[in-house]
């Protein structure tokens, strides 16, 4: 039933006919029945290939990106975020804002109105009780919650009636709408009675409100979701959605070429196959921007990097253009900021970082960093020599490291490449700022929200007792002040001024050197409609409910 244009595979009907047994017959009949109704009903199926396996079906337990690829289709948040960064109502009848009175001017009081026509997959009605339960679950100290940020501030949730509720915030927190757009509602009537919130059958039998219901998961093989006929929103148009787990990138690509999978999802097509992939007949290749920004990150706690002139010189010696063009096949986009270019908050006025190794040498000379006996620059007993680390085994990134290393050597700066296995690299070594420099891709923003306090506020330095991801140990009082202000403003135009200034200051301070904003290569068979990359979510299968096959 998968649409297969241009591949000489045997038709499925012939295989079906060869089948024996009543199960096969029933299946055949049901598929015939379904295709008759195709005009107004769901029809067809889609097979999506993922190189990682979704295993965590409970959307609030610790999980990784791939799992969210399933969550988005089984569950709904109160409102979703579209590719342009706008919130769209899902379970609410209206997205709460300051204008419509859903959020008070000071951001402290919320009033949320729900749709009254939503039912859970088991037929129970969805009500305000479920919303209250979901938010309180994130606050439950016994629960292994994936994300407490934001939810921790919610107080005094009051159920006005079945479809309306109010709550207070301990302090105004502007990123909360963005966090809620990722917070999938879970059923109170099923999870509420669990003795241990971490050990429930829900992990393998999830019940949501989403466009698809849970079919089955064959571990190590695939996950099957079925259309939810009672879905309140648009779609689903497909009868079935199947995620196949294909662990090897070469095999994933091969199955995309042979047509065994309709969509190549995470981690998609490797940049070195981009050109070849575009030649495959009957396939559409999509360059999907991602919010992750690749950077050279400095540990400002180390003596080499405390002098801003050193960081300026190292920026002058970084040939971003060649890295993007030659090493990454021109797929990603060069960038100057930590926010994605698609964001409303991206500062368009940031100066473009130049590449000029001769000038880099001059800057270092002028700042008093002079070559020592071995040709490596030094100042006050500190050698301009450091390690650069990243996840071992990422061959493309290793090439970028070597390329940068060569340029640096030509201006008397020594960079040693020291890569580590992921578990070591991103553990204390990164979190507690034990590194010198790191080449890393980070998604700084909270979905469509520009709040980056977790990364750039001085209270986020774990190595200095803070709680956050400010691993550069970056400290700027003005940035702290601006981030606090930006986090409490709810009007986008006013917030933009604040974050424009933050981006300008960080661009001048250079705790890290942005190289490019990632783009992912995805693809699907021609004829699949509705596939829409969304920079504000972490996975491309966020809207399978809206996918359909064009009549061919």
């Amino acid at each position: 039933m998968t649409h297969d244009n241009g591949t000489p595979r045997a038709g499925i009907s012939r295989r079906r006919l060869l089948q024996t047994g009543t199960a096969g017959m029933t299946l055949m009949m049901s598929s015939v029945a379904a295709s008759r109704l195709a005009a107004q009903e769901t029809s067809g199926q889609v097979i999506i290939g993922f190189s990682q396996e979704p295993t965590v079906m409970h959307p609030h337990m610790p999980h990784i990106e791939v799992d969210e690829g399933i969550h988005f289709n089984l569950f709904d948040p109160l409102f979703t975020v579209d590719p342009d960064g706008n919130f769209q109502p899902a379970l609410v009848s209206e997205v709460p804002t300051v204008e419509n009175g859903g959020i008070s001017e000071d951001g402290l009081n919320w009033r949320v109105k729900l749709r009254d026509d939503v039912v859970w997959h088991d037929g129970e009605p969805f009500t305000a009780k479920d919303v209250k339960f979901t938010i309180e679950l994130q606050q439950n100290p016994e629960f292994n919650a994936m994300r407490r940020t934001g939810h921790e501030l919610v107080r005094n949730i009051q159920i006005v009636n079945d479809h309306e509720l109010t709550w207070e915030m301990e302090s105004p927190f502007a990123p909360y709408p963005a966090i809620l757009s990722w917070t999938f509602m879970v059923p109170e009537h099923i999870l509420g009675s669990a003795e241990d919130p971490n050990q429930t059958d829900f992990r393998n039998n999830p019940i949501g409100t989403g466009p698809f219901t849970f079919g089955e998961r064959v571990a190590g093989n695939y996950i099957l979701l079925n259309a939810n006929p009672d879905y309140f929103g648009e779609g689903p148009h497909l009868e079935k959605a199947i995620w196949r787990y294909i662990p090897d990138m070469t095999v994933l690509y091969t199955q995309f070429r042979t047509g065994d999978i309709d969509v190549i999802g995470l981690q998609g097509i490797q940049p070195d196959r981009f050109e070849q992939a575009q030649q495959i007949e009957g396939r559409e290749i999509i360059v999907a921007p991602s919010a992750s920004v690749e950077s050279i990150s400095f540990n400002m706690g180390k003596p080499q990097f405390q002098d801003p002139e050193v960081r300026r010189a190292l920026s002058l010696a970084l040939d971003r253009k060649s890295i993007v063009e030659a090493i990454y096949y021109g797929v990603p986009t060069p960038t100057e900021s930590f926010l994605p270019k698609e964001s409303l908050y991206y500062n368009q006025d940031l100066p473009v970082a130049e590449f000029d190794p001769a000038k880099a040498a001059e800057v270092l000379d002028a700042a008093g960093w002079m070559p020592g006996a071995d040709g490596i620059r030094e100042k006050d007993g500190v050698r301009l020599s450091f390690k650069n680390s990243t996840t071992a085994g990422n061959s493309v990134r290793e090439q970028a490291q070597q390329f940068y290393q060569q340029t640096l050597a030509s201006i008397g700066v020594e960079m040693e490449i020291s890569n580590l296995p992921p578990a070591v690299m991103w553990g204390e070594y990164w979190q507690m700022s034990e590194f010198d420099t790191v080449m890393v891709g980070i998604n700084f923003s909270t979905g469509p929200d520009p709040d980056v306090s977790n990364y750039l506020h001085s209270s986020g330095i774990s190595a200095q007792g803070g709680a956050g991801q400010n691993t550069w140990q970056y400290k700027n009082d003005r940035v702290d002040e601006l981030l606090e202000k930006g986090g409490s403003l709810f009007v986008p135009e006013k917030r933009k001024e604040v974050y424009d200034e933050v981006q300008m200051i960080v661009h001048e301070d250079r705790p890290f050197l942005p190289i490019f904003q990632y783009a992912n290569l995805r693809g699907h068979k021609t004829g699949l409609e509705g596939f829409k990359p969304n920079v504000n979510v972490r996975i491309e299968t966020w809207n399978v409910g809206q996918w359909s096959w064009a009549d061919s």
Partner: protein
Amino acid sequence: MLRFILHRFGHSLLLLFLVSILGFTILHLAPGGPLSQFALSPGMTQAELHKIAERMGLNRPLPVQWFDWFTGLVIGDWGHSFRDGRAVLDIIMGHLFATLLLVISSTILSVGLGTLVGVLGATRRYSAFDYLATVGAMIALSIPTFWFGLVAIYVFSLKLGWLPSGNMYSIGDESVLDYARHLIMPSCVLALVQVAIWSRYMRSSMLDVIDQDFVRTARAKGLARSRVLYAHILRNALIPMITLLGIQLPTLLSGALVTETVFTWPGIGRLFLDSLGYNDYPVIMGVLMFTAIFVLLGNLIADILVASVDPRVRLE
């Protein structure tokens, strides 16, 4: 015979015990843990991860964790996966079918073909066929399974479109025929190397027997050629093969890992690799213990079989 079996059984249990301690220690000594993958997730903090680790009992002293796990193992409770929370034994059983299907079909293929080639090569020593078989075996042994698998997919799926490029069955069509279509390429790829090994062993084993006195006596008695071949030579030459089969079983399981990856076959090998990637301790230890039991059992059965087939071994 019974004493022999009991003796070997006792040995096996001791070995399993040692494997459990060694495996557990080495696994936990490796840096990182099951929670390190969440360290970079937006909104996750180190403090929160510590709390989760505590609730999962990962902060307890290693011997305590081992004891807890081992007592569970003995009473049949192998723990639950950190990833999806399912019982480890259920997970293993789910993947076992896939691996066994692949390994058994490729073993039947390779043993059958390998024996035939070996016997023909030995009876027609230094013939054109013998040379061809020798060269063919060398080539088959030198080709990496991964590469061979990809070439097979390229030819039979991409260019000719005869066979599916992977997976165990088409979802929604789980007929025997569908399984068979999916099984052809992976089992042939996996069997290729095995045929090579098997035919070489079979050939030399045949040659060991072919020149022995009792064969010459049988021929001198005027027995038919075929009777000498089947009743005298082949029966004796097959005895070392039983031991070989016992030793080859674990190799097949690891060889299946590569094949399972190329053909996205949801077997034990891939389960093990995935679990390693996520530091899913209960599943890793489960597969490790299961494989150890499998290997020991394979050897035990091979020994018993040899003893029952070969009277010379039984006499001791």
